[in-house]
């Protein structure tokens, strides 16, 4: 058993974690202002933006993957522009996977943040403005520290969801060893090749990590709720 584990190729896992980390960081930076805007705006555009950001939740990954692949391929105007001007090819590359993951995991970052911001006491936020503080200072010093459970949920679920990504990854990245062959693809290929022993080990590894991550989130959130209620 130990020999099996030591002989295991961890590259797909490392690739999955690298993809999930980069996607989570980029999505946090992009979604923070978007979630704040959605939580505070009274614009008529709000439902349209919310619909677009929620689409990856309901679209089959193959549909999303298909459109992203078409858009990134060298035959599309965007893909050919990147290819010709910057010599960048995105289809079937790690960078292409990052872009695909950003679209695929977008709602998992936006929605918890937006819900967290919407749950804040508006007078508390206004008190910060009256104190002379800018929107940015208010977000980082007042809003985010008061939505820690939502913030952690957004970060962890986005990370975990990106790690578990399969359909979009397969469509946009294929399975190139060391570049786009992430853990979920590796498990698929192992089971296709009837290598159930390694498929079991890979799957168990993913299961344990996912369980620990989710358990930590739920335990942290329970603790925060107690703190907020003044019990601790």
């Amino acid at each position, binding site marked *: 058993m130990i020999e099996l584990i030591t002989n295991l190729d961890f590259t797909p896992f490392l690739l999955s974690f690298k993809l999930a980390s980069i996607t989570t960081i980029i999505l946090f930076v992009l979604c923070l202002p978007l979630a704040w805007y959605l939580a505070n705006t009274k614009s008529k555009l709000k439902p349209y933006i919310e619909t677009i950001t929620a689409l990856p939740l309901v679209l089959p990954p193959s549909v999303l993957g298909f459109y992203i692949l078409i858009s990134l391929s060298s035959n599309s105007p965007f893909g050919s522009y990147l290819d010709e001007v910057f010599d960048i090819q995105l289809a079937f590359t790690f960078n292409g996977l990052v872009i695909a993951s950003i679209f695929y995991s977008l709602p998992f970052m936006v929605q918890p943040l937006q819900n967290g911001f919407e749950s804040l006491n508006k007078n508390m936020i*206004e008190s910060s403005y009256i104190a002379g503080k800018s929107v940015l200072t208010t977000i980082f010093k007042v809003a985010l520290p008061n939505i820690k459970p939502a913030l952690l949920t957004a970060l962890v679920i986005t990370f975990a969801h990106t790690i578990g990504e399969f359909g979009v990854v397969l469509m946009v990245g294929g399975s190139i060893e060391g570049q786009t062959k992430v853990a979920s693809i590796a498990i698929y290929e192992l089971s296709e090749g009837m290598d159930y022993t390694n498929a079991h080990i890979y799957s168990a590894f993913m299961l344990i990590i996912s369980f620990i991550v989710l358990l930590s989130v739920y335990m942290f959130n329970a603790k925060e709720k107690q703190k907020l209620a003044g019990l601790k």
Partner: protein
Amino acid sequence: MINIDIKKPLFGVEGVMNLDINIDINKNEFIIISGNSGSGKTTLLRCLSGLEECSGKIKVNNILWQDETNKIKVQKRDIGFVFQSDALFMNMNVLNNLLYVNNDKNLALRLLDMTNMNSFQKTMPSNLSGGQKQRVSICRALMKKPNILLLDEPFSALDNDIKSKLYTELLQIHNEFNLTTIMVSHDLNEIYTLASRHIKLYNGIIIKDENLAELLNNIKSDDQILLDAKILKIINKNNQEYAIVNINNKFINIKIKNKKYKLGENLKIISDELFI
């Protein structure tokens, strides 16, 4: 001197109406604004602070805060604001709530001392009572050293004992910091205890603007006072009927003479003695 001449459509319980306010407020006045629900009291404070948009002009000490083309942001207005519900920063302890506004520890400690909150410096807001939270809110509102203090029904959720203590502290703060204070309240006790001027709104317009100092000076002295009472129970002892009545939450047993009364009936009781 504050000159307010603003208009804003309001969506109240009786449909759409217009907030149409034109008043001048002198330095160091303590104004209480009262009025029915939805009459525009809170909106007036929010427009003055810049938290809400409105049309018209606001000028404070000859500085234009807003007109039809320009508007000073809420962050730049010289005000402190105390909300009705607690609006403390829940992630900061009492002292940090104050220092977030202005990193002046001496001022923070002085304010906490004035409101008897010095021993709660390290306490988180979730562990404070309603009265303590409002004390901290008042202290925090003053950390910017504003000339104008706005309070939106700050004591409405507190019991009478706490209210009385806070009245004294607020008046002390108002005088010591040379503030112009504008407060929304429905409570007659608050109006007469705190305010130098009372403005009453109805459906967005001012229907009463009275100088309370003059009003209180002109109250006639009388050797009899009328008390409102309600009959809670009628009991019969030795063929004599007695009514248990509630006068301002005090229960008194009164002998009934030559008249029929009903349970729950409201009465006016004349008293010719007043003890303080």
